[in-house]
């Protein structure tokens, strides 16, 4: 397996995530998209780590996973608050920040 194969998979995952973020109106769906994008980055890190024979990338990935978890926690908490106040989690309707 070449490096390119891993990178293509990562890019595909990233695009899926991006597509999800851009098209989903559901906040949880967007959150999942963000997760996909983050994990695409993780795939890249591990792939490079493997092919360059250094462990930095794997360590970095572990950090990134931990951070992603924290991010999801905050994100879900926000979604929960959003649901409590509005009874739905449609991000287009939640446009109080409109200028």
């Amino acid at each position, binding site marked *: 397996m070449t490096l390119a194969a891993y990178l293509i998979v990562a890019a595909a995952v990233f695009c899926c995530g*991006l597509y999800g*973020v*851009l*098209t989903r*109106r559901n906040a949880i769906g*967007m959150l999942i998209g963000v997760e996909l994008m983050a994990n695409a980055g993780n795939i890249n890190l591990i792939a490079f780590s493997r092919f360059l024979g250094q462990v930095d990338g794997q360590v970095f990935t572990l950090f990134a996973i931990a951070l992603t978890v924290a991010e999801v926690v905050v994100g879900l908490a926000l979604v929960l608050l959003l649901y409590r106040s509005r009874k739905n989690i449609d*991000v*287009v309707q*939640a*446009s*109080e*920040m*409109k*200028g």
Partner: protein
Amino acid sequence: MSTSLLILLTLFTPVGAALTLGLLPNFRRAGRPAEYLSVAAAFVSLIAATVLFIRQQLVSDATPLLDTHIRWLSHNGKSLVEVGATIDGISAPMLLVVALVAFCVQLYSMGYLAGESGDARGRYFTYQSLFIFAMEAMVVAPNAFQVFMGWELVGMCSYLLIGHYYQKPSAARASLKAFWVTKFADMGLLFGLLVLFTVGGSFGWDSTTVTSLGSSGATAVAALFLLAVVGKSAQFPLHIWLPDAMEGPTPVSALLHAATMVAAGVYLIVRTYPIFAAAPDVLTVMAYLGAFTAFFAACVAMVQTDIKKLLAYSTCSQLGYMVAALGTGSLMGGYFHLSTHACFKALLFLAAGSFIHAVHSNEMENMGGLWAKMKLSAILFIIGSLALAGLPGLSGFFSKEVILEELSHSGHALPFVACMLTAGMTAFYMTKACLLAIFGPPSEGARHAHESPKTMLLPMGILAALSLVAGFGGTMLAQMYGVEYAFHFGTTGIIATALGFAGIGLALFAYLPSRRANNPFGALTSVGSFIRYGAVDRTAAFAYRNGLCKIGAAIGWFDRYVVDGVMNLTGWLPLVAAQRLRRIQTGVVTDYVYGVIVGLIVLIAMGTVFK
């Protein structure tokens, strides 16, 4: 007593009184103590000035008795401007005249203002004392700069004193008008000083300065000074403030607007005569301007019904005489007439004030029949009138004689003729004033009139005595001025006297009580009021309202709405821009993500392109 101490006494007793009154409001508002302090100060000043005059008279003509000055402004560690005092043959007589008339007027004011509140009297005497100081400081000035300072300060006192009845709108207007007009003219003096200093090298009028001024410099300085003189000494066309200034109390008119302050212009010419003498063109202008003012103001005086306005125009006219006389290149006539005029014009005003005090009106028709009630005041008024009219033997006769002689030899035919005619007209309007005010048909006001108190009669008596005899002092004064003078009664004198008698006769013919009904000069009244209100005053008022005020309004508007408008616009633009830009904040998360992606792509593209 040393000379320096005397000059200190002369100058600083009045200003000391003014300061005391200024700093002690309760003392001032008590009225009576303020009067005593002020009159006492004027008296001390008079005595000291008299001693100085006598001492100066005793020293030989050219040497100054006193010439002292101290640094007033520093410049590069050296002295730029000095102040001090010079007593010489020029300043000593004027100092005496000022101190004398001032004392008489102060004394008279005690009686004249007796009916007013303590507050008003305190204020009045404070300003009067300040005026005496300012005028005396101007007279003894060792340089033109101090002349200017005194000159402005007397203008300020004039402003304050004309506004004595500040609650009267006419008085408030008059004081402003007087200040604005004279201040306008004073710009000439300020420019003159700048030229004098930069070209001449000093503020003096000594021969070194005049030499370095050169002919053109001297002409410039003299012309600029003349502008100031025209304002202060009420020459055409800036005379417009003087008749209005009669809104002030009559003693103020006597002291400031007849005897001393308005004569400051003439004194300025006398004082800086070396500069004027080096500017023959300006002298010629003076001769014509003075003669025109003399003639014009006499015309207007002939048709006045208000006794103070009549005297005011007469003052204009006589000041015109002085300016014209100085324009002939001789010091004697103008300066001599200044001294005698101060005596009899102050007397006339004080006597008129005595009438006004009795009948509470300035109109001559409300005074008719005062002869029966106020014989002393009436006699004093008649003495003043005759002195002014130039009755042989009285002071006005001598001084006017010199002026007419000088004019006849000067080669300026037109001014000479105008002044000769003015002599007759002067006699006419003064006789008219006497006939209407004193011998006219008994009026309502005159029925309740009483003779004025002694504090008013005494100073009038002193001035009347001087009006009678001052004419004989010509030789002495000429010696002090350092000019040649011998009384000479020639053809000019005879004609002038004849004209004077003709004027008196004409007035008798027109205004004798029996002839009042068919007054042949009624038509003159309308011409007079046209000249008075129509021509010069209107122009000045028009220039003020439609010129200056409109420019001010335009600039004010321009500043508020255009200059400031641009500033507001620069504040407004970002606000509007922000309002437009805020639309891109849709509040939809997805839109922001699009933004991030587009931004990323742009950055990557830029990174690739601008490598």
